[in-house]
Structures are given as C-alpha cells and as structure tokens.
C-alpha cells in the first residue's frame, strides 16, 4: 500500500516536470531567432518533455493496481519507448541540422563564430 503510494507520487512528480518542460520548450521554439538555436529548445522538449514523463508514466502504471494484470505491459512498453526516444531523438535532430546546414536551408545568423564554414572553405581549396 505505502510502496504503491510512493511510486505513484514519484511518477506524478516526473510527469509534472515533463509537462512544464513541454510548455517551456514550446515557448522557446516561438521565441528563439533561428533554426539552430531552436534545436536547443526542441531538445528540452524531447528529453525533458518526452523521456522524463514516459519514465514517470511507467512508474505510475506500476503503482496503479486498478489497471489489473496489464499494468506490467503498460509500464514495460512505456520504458522501452523512453529508451527508444533517448536513442532516436539525437539521431533525428543531428541529421536535420546537418542537412539544413549543407543545403543552406537555414542560415546561421546571429552567430559569434562559425568554424565549420571556415573548414569547408579550406577543404574546397580556396
């Protein structure tokens, strides 16, 4: 009984943190000036906003006995989805950033420094 309450409360805290990260990431996506800076806000949305609440939902599902025997399946699949997102999200945003840079679909502006541009100019032999 007490263990169930503890695990449900921890899960609820994680879900609440995740929801807050979601809203903040959405605000960041709206406020930031260009694509590359928005990538950082989107990372807050995928790790803080999807990975953390999935772990929390998994803990809630373990503690909820009213869900019946299927609660282990719900908890397990939520955990696997969380780990999958942890692996897929960086690969996806890395591919997107690289493609946006190479095709000049998004310009790096404002910027302090751009070493990648310097090295690419050097490689072209100029």
């Amino acid at each position, binding site marked *: 009984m007490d263990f169930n309450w503890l695990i449900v409360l921890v899960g609820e805290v994680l879900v609440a943190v995740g929801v807050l990260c979601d809203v903040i990431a959405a605000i960041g996506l709206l406020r930031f000036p260009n694509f590359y*800076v928005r990538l*950082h806000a989107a990372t807050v949305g995928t790790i803080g906003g999807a990975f953390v609440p999935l772990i929390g939902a998994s803990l809630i599902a373990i503690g909820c006995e009213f869900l019946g025997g299927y609660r282990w399946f719900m908890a397990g699949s939520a955990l696997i989805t969380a780990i999958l997102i942890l692996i897929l999200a*960086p690969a996806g945003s*890395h591919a997107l950033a690289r493609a946006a840079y190479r095709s000049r679909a998004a310009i790096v502006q404002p910027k302090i420094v751009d070493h990648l541009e310097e090295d690419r100019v050097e490689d072209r032999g100029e």
Partner: protein
Amino acid sequence: MVNRLYRSLGPAILSFITYIVFSGSLSVYDVVTGIIVSLIVGYMVANITITNPRKLLEPSRLVWLLLYAIYYFLVAEVRAHIDVIGRILHPKMPINPGIVRVPYHVETDYAMTAIANSITNTPGTVVVDVDTKRKIFYVHWINVVSVKPEVAFKSISEAYEKYAKRVFD
C-alpha cells in the same frame, strides 16, 4: 560459424531483455517465444553490429556504463536543462550562439556515437557535422564561452569522453 554464434550472444541477450520488458510477463509462452525470436535476431545482426565479442563479457565495462548513466541523467542533463530553461524564460534572452570545433580522442564507432548523442541530447549543444579525418565534432553551442577547441572540449565533452572511452574502447 562458431565465431558468429559467439558474436550473436550480445544482441540476442539485449533483444530478449527488450522483449520481456515490453511484453511485461514471465509466462512460459512469452519466455519460449522470446528466446527463439531473440536468437534469430541476434544471429541476423551479429556480423554488422559486433566486431569484438569479448568486450561484452568484461563486467568493468558494465559498471562504467552504469556510472555513465547516473552521471549523465542526474548531473549533466539537469544542469543543462536548468541553464537553457533560464535562457528561454529570461526577458532579454541572453544567447550568443556559434559553431565551434570540439576534438575527440576515441577509436571505435560506438564510442563516437555515444559521445555525439550525449552532446546532442543535452540542451545547449548540438552536433552539426563530424570530420572523421581530423577527429573533430562541429558543435552548435548556445553560449560560446571561448572559440579555442581545447576550452570548448573541456566544458562540453571531456566528462562524456572519459566514460565512453572506458565503456566502449
């Protein structure tokens, strides 16, 4: 043939654990199906995922992986999240972004992937491109402290590299 079976052990164990956790039951049906499916899957992917199967059997690597996970989720992620959330909610939005060179010193592809994913998964740093000849990641950094590669390496990826080297190299 024997070598390939030996190599298929790692992926097979991993997919069996995934199967059992996903299905969430330990009934005889699930265990038997899981063993059969994971052996087939492990044999299929053995040649393209594993080159040195002996690394899987060293327990010290697993301990370092556990330490890596604890450090990464409880220290690095929390610190980076608070930093970027502060920048988003700050009325003046204090950002000075730029793309800097970050060198790396590991050999295997798995270690490289682990470092790059760790850098991208912490808010505030995203790997834009990689140069395997010069051994450099090009990292878009939301708050460029210094343009020197050594200083950038120290403040972005030194801790990840220390763990990744012990786990995968």
